């Protein structure tokens, strides 16, 4: 491939990423707004609420921290709860290594900052479907997915801070997030091994619901990954 065609392919990957990231704007808008509303309600200043959204940039963990703070939990417990919720991202990080490991350090750092559920899942689905993508194209695609999502994530928290309690509960904004996750997971159930992994994930997570936030999910995810790999190996050997 000549340099100019490589450049075109890289730019194409970035715009493909933007296109695939766009639908999540509709999810990020309510979720981020809700954080602004709840954070202000809990007594955080504008700067503090925005600090969470821009620096931590992890919705579920931000809500977990806020929940603990509203209960006046001990300082260390607030941190533990929120970080535990984010531990799944260590798995995301590991699973990106085969695809992005060869990228320059600063690009990997940038991807790490933007590595949340939507960007990760969308990108990894694409990488799997197109093994011929170059590392450059993969990085551009990832940044493309993040491009429409991230600004809305920042700005809508601000809107939530100002809108305050003007948003009625009847909008059921809480349930937009589960719907997104379900919509993301459905197309991934493409083999018996994937279905088995999903089933184990659900069962173990529900059984361990009493454990401190995040830990049950981590164990469930480990069990599910082992199940998926085992079922896949077994099916391959049988064939």
């Amino acid at each position: 491939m000549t340099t100019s065609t490589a450049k075109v392919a890289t730019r194409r990957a970035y715009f493909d990423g933007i296109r695939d990231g766009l639908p999540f704007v509709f999810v990020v808008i309510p979720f981020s707004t809700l954080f602004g509303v709840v954070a202000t309600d809990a007594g955080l200043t504008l700067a503090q609420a925005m600090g969470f959204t821009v620096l931590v940039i992890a919705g579920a963990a931000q809500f977990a921290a806020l929940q603990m703070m509203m209960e006046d939990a001990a300082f260390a417990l607030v941190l533990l709860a929120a970080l535990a919720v984010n531990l799944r991202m260590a798995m995301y990080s590991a699973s990106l290594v085969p695809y992005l490991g060869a990228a320059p350090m600063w690009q990997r750092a940038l991807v790490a900052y933007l590595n949340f559920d939507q960007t990760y899942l969308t990108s990894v689905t694409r990488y799997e479907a197109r093994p011929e993508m170059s590392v450059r194209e993969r990085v551009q695609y990832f940044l493309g997915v993040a491009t429409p999502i991230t600004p809305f994530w920042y700005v809508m928290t601000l809107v939530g801070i100002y809108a305050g309690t003007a948003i009625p509960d009847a909008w059921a904004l809480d349930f937009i997030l589960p719907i997104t996750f379900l919509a993301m997971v459905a197309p991934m159930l493409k083999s018996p091994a994937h279905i088995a992994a999903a089933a184990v994930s659900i069962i173990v997570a529900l059984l361990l619901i009493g454990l401190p936030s995040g830990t049950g999910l981590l164990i469930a995810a480990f069990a599910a990954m082992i199940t998926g790999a085992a079922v896949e190996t077994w099916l391959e050997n049988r064939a």
Partner: protein
Amino acid sequence: MSYTTTEIWLIIAILAVGTFLIRFSFLGLIGDRPMPPLVLRLLRFTPVAVLPGMVAPLVLWPAATGGQPDPVRLIAAVATLAIGLWSRNVLWGIIGGAFVLYAGLGITALL
């Protein structure tokens, strides 16, 4: 809430650094060193291993209804999954699920 301003900012700072380090961890440290095939095989199941377990409690015991199972949310969840399986398209799943959710909430409000 009874934290000092310094404490709140410390929480934000530590969470920011901690979350970044979690996200950077493997990607930053391993780089392009090869990983064993078994590890790669396990990692390919990451999304499907994390998401279902994360969503299941949210669907069964939504915080918005005080942790009580809610028929409307359950039906919306099943619809999202069904549409997603059938269309293999994330956007259709979200649109269909949201439609069923609001239709359901609208009908219950009228009853």
